[in-house]
């Protein structure tokens, strides 16, 4: 094909950035949970789906209220965080210290259960949420148009990353989380309430997944099966960035977003194979990912 003009490349880059920010929201929580709890949460995609369904439910509930979308996003993400907290406190914690495969399969059991519960509550139809009016249209950028909502997402992603940078690096809680990711045994010795920490981290991870799910509703269809679609991509992101690394999730998401965006220009029909090859290559060359650290304990 002809060499594309610059404005097109910019738009394509911004498209990739939008993709990346949605990936980041789900992958960062997945990575955070793995970093501290050492649990690879297969149900993270299900939490994301729950966020989407809850957001839909809330938008429908507040049918005419102004700002209903934002209330729904907030409510849905908090709802998912609470659900995550309950699951962690009542069930997941009993499996710490057991073989990794038990934890893996427990989160897979959650995938199965949540998918059917969502079906019981919301049915199997295609559900859709409109963009909030304020972010409805698009703006002109370099002779091209770009959707307002996507700009909002591109701004929101780094804002959340910044918030987490602050929490992780400037607060006591954040230091504990980072310490936990490095060496879990030390924490108990230092008198940290490890179980509360685990619940909190799981809830934060779930909140991020719920937030991602709620925010994605204006640009996708909410259908059964969206949980499975998203979890594999999230895995790829955290593997590339480094399991357990919050910043790795950001970098991985940015990388995968651009690979998807520009990959289709170079190899239009091989994205399906390519992302898994990318994942395998990273694992072979540098199993702990671009920004992760080799696991201890």
């Amino acid at each position, binding site marked *: 094909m002809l060499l594309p003009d610059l404005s097109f490349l910019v738009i394509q880059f911004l498209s990739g950035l939008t993709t990346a920010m949605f990936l980041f929201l789900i992958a960062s929580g997945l990575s955070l949970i*793995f970093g501290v709890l*050492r649990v*690879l949460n297969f149900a993270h995609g299900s939490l994301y789906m729950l966020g989407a369904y809850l957001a839909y439910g809330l938008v429908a509930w507040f049918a005419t209220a102004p700002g209903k979308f934002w209330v729904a996003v907030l409510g849905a993400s908090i709802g998912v965080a609470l659900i995550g907290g309950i699951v962690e406190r009542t*069930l997941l914690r*009993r*499996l710490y210290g*057991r*073989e*990794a*495969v*038990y934890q*893996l*399969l*427990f989160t*897979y*059991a*959650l*995938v*199965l*259960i949540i*998918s*059917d*519960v969502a*079906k*019981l509550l919301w049915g199997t139809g295609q559900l859709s949420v409109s963009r909030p009016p304020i972010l409805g249209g698009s703006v002109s950028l370099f002779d091209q148009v770009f959707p307002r909502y996507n700009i909002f997402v591109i701004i929101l992603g780094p804002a959340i990353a910044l918030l987490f940078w602050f929490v992780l690096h400037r607060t006591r809680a954040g230091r504990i989380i980072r310490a936990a990711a490095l060496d879990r045994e030390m924490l108990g010795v230092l008198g940290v309430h490890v179980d509360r920490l685990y619940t909190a981290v799981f809830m934060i991870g779930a909140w991020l997944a719920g937030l991602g799910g709620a925010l994605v509703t204006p640009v996708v269809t909410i259908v059964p099966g969206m949980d*499975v679609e998203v979890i*594999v991509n999230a*895995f790829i992101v955290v*593997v590339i960035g480094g*399991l357990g690394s919050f910043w790795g999730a950001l970098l991985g998401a940015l990388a995968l977003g651009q690979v998807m965006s520009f990959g289709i220009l170079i190899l239009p*029909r*091989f994205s*399906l*194979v390519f992302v*898994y*090859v990318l*994942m*395998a290559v990273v*694992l*072979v060359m540098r*199993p*702990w990912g671009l920004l992760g650290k080799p*696991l201890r304990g």
Partner: protein
Amino acid sequence: MAVMQRLPWGLLALAAAGLLPFVGSRFYLYLGTDIAIMALFAVSLNLLLGYTGLVSFGQAAYFGIGAYACALLMMQASVPFILSLLAGGLLAGAAALLFGYFCIRLTQIYFAMLTLAFAQIVWAAAFKWNSLTGGDTGLTGVPFPAFLDSPARFYYFTLGVVGISLAFLRRVVGSPFGRMLMTIRENPERAEFIGVHVRWYELAAFVLAGFFSGVAGGLFGIFNHSVFPDFSYWTKSAEVLIMTILGGMYTFFGPAVGAGILLFLNMLVTSYTEYWPLVLGVILAALLFLFPGGVLGFLEAHLLRRGHREPRGT
């Protein structure tokens, strides 16, 4: 109790299975064939999971490769069935050698993720490579070989192949090689310390598991008259993991029992409700909390009071 311990359970089960065609229902023949194939798949996975302590989350890769290779050789190169089946296993084993070489250098969750990535590559290749694999609509019209062209014959043949494979695997895990795998599971550092080439053992186990998964896949393709990319999808890998845990990963026959229970339950539950995922999820969760040793593990520990569970913590 002592009698119960000494009974050759494997042979008894095989003999009982041999009587199935006399029950008279063709449906149960198909179910039996299905269970036997999945049993082989699950036991082969357990060589990694239960015996070597390696969580393979991509065993469906070798199942799929075996299925495609066997079916393609029969359909396109007119290779006799038995040879195709063997070749399917060998090709799956070869793929396991290649992928395993990279996988065994990783530990724990990284190992699981890399096996998953490789399996997804196999799935994506099968999905995309239309000219060879038929893409998402798969290979169709794979025939039962002429000499097995009745459900009962195919059932007996499957039983034979699975029986021989399980007997072989049983010998493997009972051999010094198998003992060494368990030592590696319990304490890889110590194994390394006493001069064992841990990776070499792990790779050998990976290839063996790949070979038998491939044989199971080959059988499954013929049994279904078709091969689809789904055979290698990650949900298939999860399914066989569930079978293994359900039956008990620290017993040799546990995974086979798990395969039987899961397929039978699936048949039973889906005839009443479409909420099978919910039922399976609840069963799985309950199992993990209440019977972590799996059904056979529980039976062995509580009924047979055998209590030896393939040695742990040696």
